[in-house]
């Protein structure tokens, strides 16, 4: 090979070389890559265990070249607790959607965070239930039309969207809680850094780390991938501001 040729971009080794089933413009693929890059950068592929959730990312084990347990809908933080207690030196993370984590799994995520369970949680918020066809989620924005809020979410009847990153930041057991987005290259790079930090905290045994990622679901939003991507920045961020809500590592 020409010694002047430099590799500047390649598949992370924590990802298998297979096409994914995600729709065009879906951000699950992007977030998978960022998680895999973090695993590679920390050189922990051999000791990482992922916990898959029920949602569009249910086939996690087909894409990540790591050990995976498939959890029942919403229960990934409890499954992760079990794995981590058996292998405290492994890196254990859950990968969950907003229906999974913020609806059926509300109890499990709050209590795992509150116990200070030393795991990493990656939470993809796309304001809808993707896999089941676009129903209203706890994160659906006011006025947003979904298949079960056909007149637009009415907060008087259907309640308010839940801001999970802020909620978990309030708990004493949480070590890190942040919200990022992947709608622009710049923000995706920033998101990658945040995800890396959340994994690094686990390696350093610094407690429960949570990253909420704002992502697009073009299929269920009924938008082109480009418009859906734009919605993340235009609408979602107004209600779900990006930022670090808690970081115990920055305290003096």
């Amino acid at each position, binding site marked *: 090979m020409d010694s002047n040729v430099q590799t500047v971009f390649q598949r992370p080794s924590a990802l298998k070389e297979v096409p994914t089933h995600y729709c065009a413009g879906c951000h699950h693929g992007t977030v998978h890559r960022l998680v895999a890059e973090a695993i590679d950068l920390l050189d922990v592929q051999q000791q990482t265990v992922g916990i898959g959730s029920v949602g569009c990312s249910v086939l996690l084990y087909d894409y*990540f070249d*790591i*050990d995976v347990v*498939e*959890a029942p809908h919403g*229960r990934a933080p*409890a499954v*992760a607790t079990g794995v981590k207690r058996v*292998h405290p030196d492994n890196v254990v993370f859950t990968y969950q959607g907003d229906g999974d984590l913020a609806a059926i799994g509300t109890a499990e995520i709050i*209590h795992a965070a509150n116990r200070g369970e030393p795991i990493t949680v990656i939470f993809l918020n796309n304001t809808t239930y993707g896999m089941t066809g676009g129903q209203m989620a706890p994160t659906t924005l006011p006025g947003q039309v979904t298949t079960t809020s056909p007149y637009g979410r009415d907060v008087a009847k259907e309640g308010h969207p839940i801001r999970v990153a802020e909620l978990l930041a309030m708990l004493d057991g949480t070590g890190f809680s942040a919200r990022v987005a992947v709608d622009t290259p710049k923000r995706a790079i920033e998101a990658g850094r945040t995800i890396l930090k959340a994994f690094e905290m686990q390696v350093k045994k610094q407690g429960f780390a949570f990253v909420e990622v704002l992502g697009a679901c073009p299929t269920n939003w009924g938008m082109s991938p480009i418009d859906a991507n734009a919605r993340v920045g235009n609408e979602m961020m107004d209600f779900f501001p990006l930022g670090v809500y808690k970081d115990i590592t920055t305290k003096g």
Partner: protein
Amino acid sequence: MKKRLFVKGNEAIAMGAIEAGCRYYFGYPITPQNDIPEYMSREMPLVGGTFVQAESEVAAINMVLGAGAAGGRVMTSSSGPGISLKAEGMSFMAGSEVPAVIVNIQRPGPGLGGIDVSQADYFQAVKGAGHGGYHLIVLAPHSVQELYDLTMLAFDLSDRYRIPAMILGDAMLGQMKEALVPNSYRAPEDLPAKDWAVTGKRGRIRSNAVKSLYLGDGELEAHNWHLHAKYERLKEREIRFEATGLEDAELILTAFGGAARIVKTAIAMARREGLKVGLIRPITLYPFPAEIYRKATAETPKVLCVELNNGQMVEDVRLSAHPGADIRFYGRPGGTGSLPNPEEIFEQICKHYKD
């Protein structure tokens, strides 16, 4: 001489589990099994184990799923309403072939019901409480000694077949004290290695996935036949029961767990009166000892099934018995004051013996 202890049933389960190498326990309080989590919270740290009081039974069983998937020897315990909540997790564990021991110290239902003796969870235990059609190994001890011994066995069976195993006790067994000889545990040499467990890839070429989702054409059917073959192997190899007095019996009594204790006393009373009464006590409720019923009822067609419910195991007895057998039932479906005494069962024996 081996030392004898005076131990409460629930504690015998916890002792047996720790002796068998269980080092992970996840649970949630519910009467009448609270002695188990209390014992575990006290003893687990002393043996380098883990005790977590989960936020719910749902979380507890999923912690069990995680720990079992990670290769740990793990247990949870509960009673009726909590076992209902664990049903989803048990279905996932059966589907993903994760070993673990689940204890149900039954209380009467349905709903909140009561907190005393009952056997109303037989269906729930042996037919598969969760979705999708599956079985657990179900063991039904009837003494404190058996609570201890069968808990140890449950871990081995569960590991050998990669299937969750349930100890089906009841409030009477859990709350009573009896003599216990704490036999030491010896691990069978031929237990398969847990090379399927998630431990981190660590030099393995292929990563492990513990899962119950099968989407490809024909994959799920193949998986379900694979699970089915396991149930068939259990029926061939792992059936356990106690049978006494069948040689000359004119009436066979059958009962499991706590009910069998009362029945045994009543049978002794009947024998003293010259009545020829035998007993079949299933120890494995799944796999069910069908064959012994078929054989025994060919000779003695009259069977009285006694349960602390309004008729659950009797259905399996009917399915197992010789065609033409005369299967009768006596049940007390739960709550304070519903526990029959031996005299009451003796009366039933006299009644069914005659007509």
